[in-house]
């Protein structure tokens, strides 16, 4: 298989580095190698590059320069936001949802060991937060923090952030939002949240860099202590090239976001129109405004995700299951389980997530291969091997 024959439909996992971002990064991977903390000309050039990048990020998102803290990516951003909030306050209650990314759920479980209480707000079958119940939960004065992901990485549900933001402000609850899957894919107004997590490689930037947008006045304790980088909120020599690449990619992605929405939605709908013809298909993602335009998660009855992903990969189509274990086997997604999908069906779920380079021709080619793979997998599995009852007690 040649690389040019690959149809990459896994943009929610990662995206290719944009050539503009790579070009912007190159000097800082080689000739402009200074440490931004050094006072000489090489250091100064690196410092300027970071601050220029910060200005670009600020402009793209609509924030202030002092509000952007660069991190090593989305996971660190979520940790800095959640643990950073918790470490600067007395233990209280945090409200979140059961469909958050594991980089939110796991640190919250850790906080539980430190005396914080975690409450899970209800989501509807489509993944949307139950606002009424959320508001009810926040009536308890002990709730000090809420963490609600802007858009879900698996089923693509976009939360009603304006409403969520209003409820939190009324209750004076600090709102964190993991916006890793939203930024670059849909318009995002960071002013709606007190803390926002962003990851560069989801919108054409490099891996290993991200940021938290921390609204002025929100008290945060650093996780990494040492040097005074990032105003003391994140010690450690900056990933200069990464930050520069992230800024370049973010500027492009936010400028092009309307086009991204249009083209991916058109292709996503076109993909679904073809997959919907397959008997026994189930769709878990919405198709409307309240869902990411590029995301389609489906399951085919009787077709295991492991098998479909391998069959598609062999035909050059790259997709993911909702979740995978450390070794790489598909696992039933916690998001689907939390929205009431039975485990058997969740084991069949595969996610198509489209990137900016998608086209109708590519989608048609992919859809054809998917349909063929599903039929083939069902044909084989449909002739059941002998049903073995274990012989114990027989």
């Amino acid at each position: 298989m040649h690389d040019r024959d690959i149809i990459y439909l896994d943009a929610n996992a990662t995206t290719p580095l944009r050539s503009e971002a790579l070009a912007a990064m190159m000097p800082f991977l080689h000739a402009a190698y200074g440490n931004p903390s050094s006072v000489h000309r090489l250091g100064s050039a690196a410092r300027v590059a970071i601050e220029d990048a910060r200005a670009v990020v600020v402009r793209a998102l609509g924030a202030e320069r002092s509000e952007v803290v660069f991190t090593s990516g989305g996971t660190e951003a979520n940790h800095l936001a959640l643990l950073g909030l918790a470490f600067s306050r007395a233990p209280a209650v945090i409200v979140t949802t059961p469909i958050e990314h594991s980089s939110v759920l796991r640190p919250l479980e850790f906080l539980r060991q430190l005396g914080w209480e975690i409450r899970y707000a209800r989501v509807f079958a489509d993944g949307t937060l139950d606002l009424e119940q959320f508001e009810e939960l926040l009536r308890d004065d002990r709730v000090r923090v809420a963490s609600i992901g802007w858009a879900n990485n698996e089923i693509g549900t976009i939360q009603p952030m304006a409403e969520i933001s209003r409820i939190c402000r009324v209750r004076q609850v600090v709102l964190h939002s993991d916006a890793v899957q939203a930024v670059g894919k849909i318009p995002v107004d960071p002013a709606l949240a007190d803390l926002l997590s962003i990851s560069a490689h989801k919108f054409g930037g490099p891996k290993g860099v991200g940021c938290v947008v921390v609204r002025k006045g929100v008290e945060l304790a650093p996780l990494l202590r040492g040097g005074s980088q990032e105003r003391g909120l994140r010690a450690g020599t900056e990933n200069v090239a990464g930050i520069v690449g992230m800024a370049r990619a973010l500027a492009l992605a936010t400028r092009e976001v309307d086009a991204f929405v249009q083209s991916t939605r058109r292709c996503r709908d076109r993909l679904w129109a073809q997959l919907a013809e397959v008997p026994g298909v189930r769709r878990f993602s919405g198709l409307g405004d309240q869902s990411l335009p590029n995301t389609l998660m489906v399951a085919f009855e009787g077709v295991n995700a492991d098998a479909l992903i391998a069959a598609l990969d062999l035909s050059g189509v790259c997709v993911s299951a909702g979740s995978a274990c450390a070794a790489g086997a598909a696992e039933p997604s916690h998001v689907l389980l939390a929205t009431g999908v039975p485990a058997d069906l969740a084991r069949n779920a595969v996610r198509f997530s489209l990137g900016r380079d998608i086209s109708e021709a590519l989608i048609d080619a992919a859809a054809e291969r998917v349909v063929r793979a599903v039929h083939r997998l069902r044909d084989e599995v449909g002739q059941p091997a002998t049903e073995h009852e274990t012989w114990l007690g027989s």
Partner: protein
Amino acid sequence: MARVVVAMSGGVDSSVAAALLVRDGHEVIGVAMRLWAGPSESGCCSLDDFLDARRVANRIGIPFYVMDFSVPFERHVVRPFVEEYLSGRTPNPCALCNQFVKFDALWQRARSLGAEYLATGHYARVVRDMETGAVQLRAATYGAKDQSYFLFGIPCGLLERLLLPVGDKTKEEVRELAREWDLPVAEKPESQEVCFVAGKSYAQFVEEYSGRAGRAGVIVDESGRVLASHKGIHRFTVGQRRGLGIGVGSPRYVVSLESDTGTVRVGPKAATVARGLRARNANWLVPALPEPGQPLSVKIRSRFQPVPAVVESVSQKDFVVRAPRGLQAVTPGQAAVLYDGDRVVGGGWIDVAL
């Protein structure tokens, strides 16, 4: 040249098997089976083994997937393993896994990926009889590593779709090939443990998994005299000598286990010798069942030199064999595999010693 799915464990045998298939020009797809999602981080489902398999696949240029088979594995291997111990028998999980998971669930998966053949790194041979055209399962060329015993349960129809590329090699030859091809697992030590119980005693695993213990009871000698009490029948296996807690006098061996009373019978070594056995749930790898009276040899556990045996009665589902020279420690739950020379005739699960 055909499309072949090779089961890759991350060990040197299956790695070299995959590489040999690539060398022979096949279109090879590597699949590692995730069998056990339980708490164990070591054993065959350890992350390092999957990563090793992935590195080998990358090295030899084949696609590679980790696939989850934990549902059939638990149903056909883990649960029976535990229930067998609790009922005073000694299961053979590797043979169960081959029969019910690798040569069933994995083969189905392989076919669904368009594979014509399934390959593994077992030391055994699939040989086509030039006269009859029938495909036969034979012991490995070099007996020391022979694993044909574990393969007796393979469905007869799959035999001609099975490739065993290392079956005619010695372990040292396999390692030498791995070195020559610079496979990153060339020097990897072998794993000997049952994968899902790694790091624990079987008894401990049985107790933790089932939340109970086998029936407690007493240890008695041949005359019925009580020698000691014990905490559960799942801690014993026929032929066992150590750990009986009756360390006086001449060595005593477990002769039989009675799960309904919790009685463990012990005796001198001679008492563990049976004249034959009955096996159930047989699987045959020959076109016609063996004839009563036919002289064969039988192997009754993995580390056991096959001994001459005569078929007494036989049906599709079960058989009785007699061994004129006796069988040391016939253990219910283990497999009894019949050989005609180095050819596997078939086998079954030992029900009772006779």
